[in-house]
């Protein structure tokens, strides 16, 4: 008996310590890598400069695949952005269009023909020439695939099963022409997205499905090795077409799931750069002379989705009541530590087409109670889903859920907080099994379409429209906006759509957060991109 008791006591202590131990064991492995890292480049760079040009990038999760065309997750793009390049690039910290693998481009009057003039003297890592033919082969590969295979290509360049890109032709070695079936306003922005990195045709034809294990692009870094759930290593592309770049010799992307563990790893010097910093740790980082706090420009929205096919949220009045019941400002102040802006619309104000005339639902529990009474809500308990992992748009879903639970209880909606493992959570929410769920979105290309249409159009039910919101009026506006090339008119369409969405209240928009990163002082010229993935071509260690 006694033995059993002591044993359980020991076990409990063990559980308590496991958090700490997890950090330690991670640290041990890390330690060996650090020595590896300092030893190796020391010999290489001894002649150049004292500081080894090695960056260890700590992030929350491992990549799914390194073939950018087949993935949808930010952790994959973070790496592929450095191995692959796109025809066009976004600005360093915005979503303006800049030259990439294409140095110049022209658009026809009718918006149906795009001509790209490619950079000279670019080669893939495997020695294959980058030319118009390579671009054609890439697009043909994407076009031939199903939505299952190439999700982003299908969601960006196919509408109702029809290809928006009719043909792609290589006019000569360095000129490629895209013919569209209908005008697409954000076409250039779409082409600049990470999934459309140009891959070596020789490599993907040879590798087939396995291309993601051995990616070959034109980017500043060459893939070296991938230890699943641990690290991905890339090294400098010695033949990179831009002279003098990249500055780093090696980048190691390390997956450290727990935010506190990752920050500890940064403090002990095991990693050089950490993503996903808890807002509550920001002040201590700012006060640390060894570290710098870096803010990623905000282009996201965190929200509480109200599944409009489920009771009681099939009633618009209940959805509006929930919007009035939640004290968003208090949540932003407490669990984003003020490093966020209270959201009103489904997209952040920095995106053109944002409707700033909508006031947003204020915190008004009395009004919420009235609406609930009017709706005839019966007081049935709802499930409130909270994401199990910290996300850039919401650092601590569990805590936000608990605050919302209290807000809802105050107006008479009893709720139970439910959570699942992350992949299951997304799958179940996608199937419309949640009553109310926390979720968010980081924009891919800075276009309104990528927020409102992607997240709330009826076309995307079963995909990114987790709340099952279906409005024909909004759908018409959003479809019209897709092919409207006049910027002014297009913005007006989005503004009108936001009015409808605000009235129907399929979500409680909560916050546009500022994701935080921290780095050692020596990390120079690291500019985080609002889309969540950036090329590290200019980064160096001082």
């Amino acid at each position, binding site marked *: *008996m*006694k033995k*059993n*008791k002591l044993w*359980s*006591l020991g*076990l*409990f202590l063990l*559980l*308590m310590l496991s*958090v700490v131990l997890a950090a330690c064991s991670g640290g041990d492995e890390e330690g060996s890598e650090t020595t590896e890292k300092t030893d190796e480049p020391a010999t290489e760079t001894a002649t150049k400069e004292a500081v080894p040009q090695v960056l260890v990038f700590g992030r929350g999760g491992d990549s799914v695949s390194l073939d950018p065309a087949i993935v949808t997750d930010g952790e994959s793009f973070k790496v592929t952005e450095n191995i692959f390049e796109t025809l066009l690039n976004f600005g360093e910290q915005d979503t303006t269009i800049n030259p990439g693998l294409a140095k110049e481009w022209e658009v026809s009057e009718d918006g149906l023909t795009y001509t790209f003039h490619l950079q000279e003297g670019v080669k893939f890592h495997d020695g294959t020439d980058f030319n118009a033919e390579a671009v054609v082969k890439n697009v043909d590969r994407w076009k031939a695939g199903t939505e299952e295979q190439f999700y982003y290509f299908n969601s960006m360049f196919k509408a109702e099963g029809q290809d928006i890109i009719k043909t792609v032709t290589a006019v000569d070695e360095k000129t490629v022409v895209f013919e569209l079936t209908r005008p697409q306003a954000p076409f250039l922005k779409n082409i600049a997205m990470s999934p459309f990195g140009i891959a070596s045709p020789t490599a993907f034809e040879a590798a087939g499905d396995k291309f993601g294990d051995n990616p070959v692009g034109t980017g500043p870094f060459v893939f070296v090795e991938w230890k699943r759930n641990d690290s991905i290593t890339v090294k400098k592309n010695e033949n990179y077409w831009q002279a003098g770049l990249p500055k780093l010799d090696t980048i190691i992307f390390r997956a450290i799931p727990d*935010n*506190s563990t990752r920050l500890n790893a940064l403090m002990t010097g095991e990693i050089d750069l950490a993503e996903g910093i*808890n807002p*509550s740790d920001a002040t*201590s980082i700012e006060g640390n002379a060894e570290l710098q706090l870096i803010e990623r420009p905000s282009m996201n929205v965190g929200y509480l989705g109200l599944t409009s096919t489920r009771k009681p949220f099939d009633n618009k009045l209940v959805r509006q009541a929930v919007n009035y019941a939640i*004290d968003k400002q*208090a*949540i932003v*102040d*407490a*669990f984003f530590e003020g490093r966020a802006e209270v959201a009103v619309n489904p997209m952040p104000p920095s995106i053109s087409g944002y409707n700033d005339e909508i006031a947003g639902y204020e915190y008004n529990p009395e009004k919420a109670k009235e609406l609930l009474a009017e709706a005839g809500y019966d007081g049935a308990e709802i499930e409130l889903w909270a994401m199990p992992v910290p996300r850039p748009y919401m650092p*601590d879903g*569990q*805590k936000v*859920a*608990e*605050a919302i*639970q*209290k807000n809802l*209880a105050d107006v008479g909606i009893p709720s*139970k*907080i439910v*959570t699942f493992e992350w992949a299951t959570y997304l799958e179940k929410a996608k199937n419309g099994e949640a009553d109310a769920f926390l979720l968010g979105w980081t924009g891919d290309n800075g276009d309104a379409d990528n927020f409102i249409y992607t997240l709330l159009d009826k076309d995307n039910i079963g995909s990114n429209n987790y709340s099952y919101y279906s409005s024909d009026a909004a759908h018409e506006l959003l479809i019209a906006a897709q092919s409207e090339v006049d910027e002014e008119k297009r913005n007006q369409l989005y503004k009108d759509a936001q009015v409808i969405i605000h009235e129907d209240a399929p979500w409680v928009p909560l916050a546009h957060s500022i994701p935080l990163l921290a780095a050692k002082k020596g990390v120079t010229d690291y500019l985080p991109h609002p889309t969540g993935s950036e090329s590290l071509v200019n980064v160096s260690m001082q």
Partner: protein
Amino acid sequence: MVSNSMEMTAKEVKAVGPWKEAWRSFKKSKAALVGAAIVLFFVFLAVFGPLFVPQGINDQNLSVRLLPPSSEYWFGTDDFGRDIFSRIVHGARISLAVGFLSVILSAVVGSFLGMIAGYYGRWIDTIISRIFDIMLAFPSILLAIAIVSILGPSLQNALIAIAIINIPNFGRLIRSKVLSVKEEEYIVAARAIGMKDARILFRHVLPNSLSPVIVQGTLAIATAIIEAAALSFLGLGATAPQPEWGKMLSDARIHIMTAPWTILFPGIAIMLTVLGFNLMGDGLRDALDPKMKN
């Protein structure tokens, strides 16, 4: 058996009942008294505390979050601006309820199975004992996690899981006791006059086999409280916003550097309760186990 009859004669001489004698022996141990005092304190807290606490347990006030202990908030506030003192007092009710209820449940089921196994023997004994062996082959917390995963995470299911994993401990204890008790003359006599099995079991065998269960029960409460806290810490027990101590620890984890009081007080509460039950249990064992007598 021998010691039992000797005990009987000793008692007749001194004219002191067995319970009184146990109390006398219990009193001698300072540690046991301290343990009992702690347990009584927490029981009192659990029963009456919630009536007197200064704040509602679930009154969120995000403008006073993470305040250090002060005259207004004795134990400080957590990250929802809730009064930690009030939550700990309420938490005593939850933890003790889980401890008592799960132990009662496992003691009842375990004793019943153990008694049947010990009394009837043969294949019934084989089946029940092997089931106990199988259950004991699993680390208990692992088994509890498995059970909760099947039932779904909630405090009630955590309670059931803890009760289930403790059944074999009680069962084996009672079984071995019954094995010796059933050979006693008075049982043989009862059987000889044709008394029914049920009456023999519940009127004669059970009362004479209970004392080790009381000791085991006290110690098991301590274990059960820890297991409940562990399950809640892992997110498999209490759900928000229940002020369960283990859950409070888990919620406060990220503030360990900036607001240590959020993790300190629930930790102390768990430690004290468990310590109390363990000290008391040890004292009870010394008092009730005739073999420990000098």
